[in-house]
């Protein structure tokens, strides 16, 4: 129950119900009073009309006939009983259906409401029992000849009675709506909490180490399903990254262990016996070279990390991919000659863009490097740079063994080397670096089949039209 009161949804529900209740009271109250106001105005109009009619009817005849006419009128109206009292100039009763003269003084054309304590039998006969006593009167006066006055009154007991009957009903309806509102609030809170509870429990499961836990979907496609689906996607992504970090850690350990253990055994062997200065120098020089390969690995990692953090973006400048491509080709020309590969370049269209030239030439050089490194027999390498719509596309195709489709995504991961023995040179960072360079420029890398060989597609968007 405490949970229920803490529930945000329940609180909203209660607040809404409260507001609804208050506005209902207001609406019903206004309606209630307006209704009775209009009813009593109608009654007053009717009373004045009747008084006017009586004045006309009674003034037309002389006094003796007046009493007769009035008695006749009263007798004729027993079904709709009014109060009639004809007084002489001294204020004594001449005729009428009540005995007691009201103490209230009323002028002609005026209406007064008062309680009339008249308990005469005559009155008891005229009015139904429940309306009596006392009489609740709405009365006016008609002035006649010779100081005679006729008091005409209506009992507004009826209105009071309707009021008395309607009021509890109104209260009951209001209370019922309040209870219904609260019930709906509880129901909604319970129901929504149950949905949230499923998500909460799944999160707790993950916290407790059951990493494969996922949020259950109800299949209704509602916002909870939507949230759950996104959370599941996020979890999938996190666990994918966790997995790849683990893979990376294993691979780093392997890559760093080899040069380290090589250095260690070299130095251990050096310590076994006394050696000449030249021998020591050689051993140290070899060690220095091993450390520089370690440094290279670390630097490559740091570079990837810093590019990923967007650092290179500060150095973005207008550049011409054709120039970068030509520079890379020129730089690799002697390397290609040594290995026996031959490079075909094809740059076409306007290849200007905005980017970091150092990062892009790093990517181009890594791609050429890979093409040379992973093709065992010399073959043709094609470097194409072209414009495609608003994008610039760099393609590096080799005619080597290529990468099977299933391994292409893995090949872009850090420290991945597709030869499990990890005997080829390199840190397995080349393509990852290409990928982060592409990403920092808002672009993408795709590996495809060059038939035969590997085709790497590097796409840079040129949003600024360059």
């Amino acid at each position, binding site marked *: 129950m405490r949970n229920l009161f803490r529930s945000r949804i329940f609180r909203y529900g209660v607040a809404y119900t409260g507001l609804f209740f208050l506005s209902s009271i207001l609406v019903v109250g206004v309606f209630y009073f307006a209704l009775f106001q209009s009813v009593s105005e109608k009654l007053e109009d009717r009373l004045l009309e009747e008084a006017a009619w009586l004045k006309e009817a009674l003034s037309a005849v002389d006094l003796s006939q007046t009493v007769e006419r009035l008695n006749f009128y009263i007798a004729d109206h027993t079904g709709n009983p009014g109060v009639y009292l004809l007084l002489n100039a001294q204020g004594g009763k001449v005729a009428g259906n009540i005995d007691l003269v009201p103490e209230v003084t009323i002028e002609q054309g005026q209406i007064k409401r008062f309680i009339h304590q008249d308990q005469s039998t005559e009155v008891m006969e005229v009015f139904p029992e429940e309306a009596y006593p006392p009489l609740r009167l709405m009365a006016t006066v008609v002035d006649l000849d010779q100081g005679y006055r006729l008091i005409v009154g209506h009992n507004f007991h009826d209105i009071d009675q309707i009021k008395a009957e309607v009021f509890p009903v109104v209260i009951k309806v209001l209370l019922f709506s309040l209870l219904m509102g609260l019930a709906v609030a509880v129901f909604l809170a319970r129901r929504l909490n149950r949905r949230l509870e499923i998500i909460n429990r799944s999160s707790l499961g993950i916290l407790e180490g059951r990493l494969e836990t996922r949020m259950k979907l109800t299949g209704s496609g509602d916002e909870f399903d939507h949230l759950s689906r996104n959370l599941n996607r996020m979890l999938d992504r996190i666990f994918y990254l966790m997995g790849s970090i683990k893979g990376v850690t294993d691979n780093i350990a392997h890559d760093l262990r080899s040069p380290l253990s090589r250095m260690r055994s070299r130095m251990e062997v050096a310590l076994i016996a006394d050696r000449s200065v030249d021998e020591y120098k050689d051993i140290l*020089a070899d060690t*220095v*070279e091993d*450390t*520089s390969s370690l*440094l*290279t690995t*670390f*630097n*490559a990692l*740091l*570079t990837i990390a*810093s590019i990923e*953090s967007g*650092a*290179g*973006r*500060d*150095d973005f400048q207008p550049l011409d991919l054709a120039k970068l491509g030509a*520079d890379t080709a*020129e*730089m*690799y020309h*002697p*390397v290609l000659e*040594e290995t026996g590969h031959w490079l075909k370049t094809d740059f076409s269209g306007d290849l200007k863009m905005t980017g*970091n*030239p*150092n*990062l892009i*030439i*790093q990517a181009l*050089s*890594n791609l050429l*490097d890979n093409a*040379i*490194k992973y093709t065992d027999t010399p073959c043709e390498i094609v470097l194409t740079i072209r414009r495609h719509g608003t994008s610039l596309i760099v393609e590096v195709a080799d005619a080597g063994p290529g990468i099977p489709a299933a391994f292409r995504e893995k090949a872009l991961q850090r420290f991945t080397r597709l030869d499990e023995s990890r005997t080829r040179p*390199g840190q397995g960072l*080349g393509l990852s670096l290409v990928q982060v360079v592409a990403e920092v420029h808002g672009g993408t890398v795709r590996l495809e089949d060059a038939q035969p060989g590997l085709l790497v597609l590097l796409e840079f968007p040129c949003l600024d039209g360059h």
Partner: protein
Amino acid sequence: MNVLIIEDDKQAAGYVGKGLTESGHTVSVAHNGDDGLMMARSGNFDVLVVDRMLPDSDGLTIIKTLRQEGTNTPALVLSALSEVSHRVEGLTAGGDDYLTKPFAFTELLARLEALVRRANPEAAVKEYQVGDLHLDLLTRQVNRAGNDIDLQPREFNLLAYLMQHAGQVVTRTMLLENVWEYNFDPQTNVVDVHISRLRGKIDKDYDTSLLKTVRGAGYMLEKP
């Protein structure tokens, strides 16, 4: 050369200092920014090695302050951050070169020597001569022992840079930055291949080699 190292990591400063001393240079060390600034103001140093992150101040601020005061001793900024933007920031603040940690000592030494040489330019050089190798910057002619050598434009620039720094170690990174004007780490040592081609043209047919490989460091063009 007379070097001032401003570096709070005492061990790192010690190694660098020892390396420089053993390479025949004079070394002073300051372990914080205030001492470093005070010592640098004396102006008796040929070059400063300034760590970017000091406990009491930013290495770049020290260099900026010195430049405003009119001390133009060239400086090399050491930065633990490999971000390219920080490199650029280091240069525009008046530092003359930068190096990111972790670095190889030989790289540091080579860059310091290049910095000092750059700070003391020889009057308008038109040609270089190392042993019997001659390079003319105006006609872009190269000959050795009287024989013309035909070089590609890039090879010419490469040789010119090596000759400009004759007798000094020049690292691969320095060559990439100055000859190709790019700053990146090629996986295959592209520079080595270019050097070996250049060597084929200037050294192969002669008894003495001028272009030497310095193991673990880079290259040096030197009189035999």
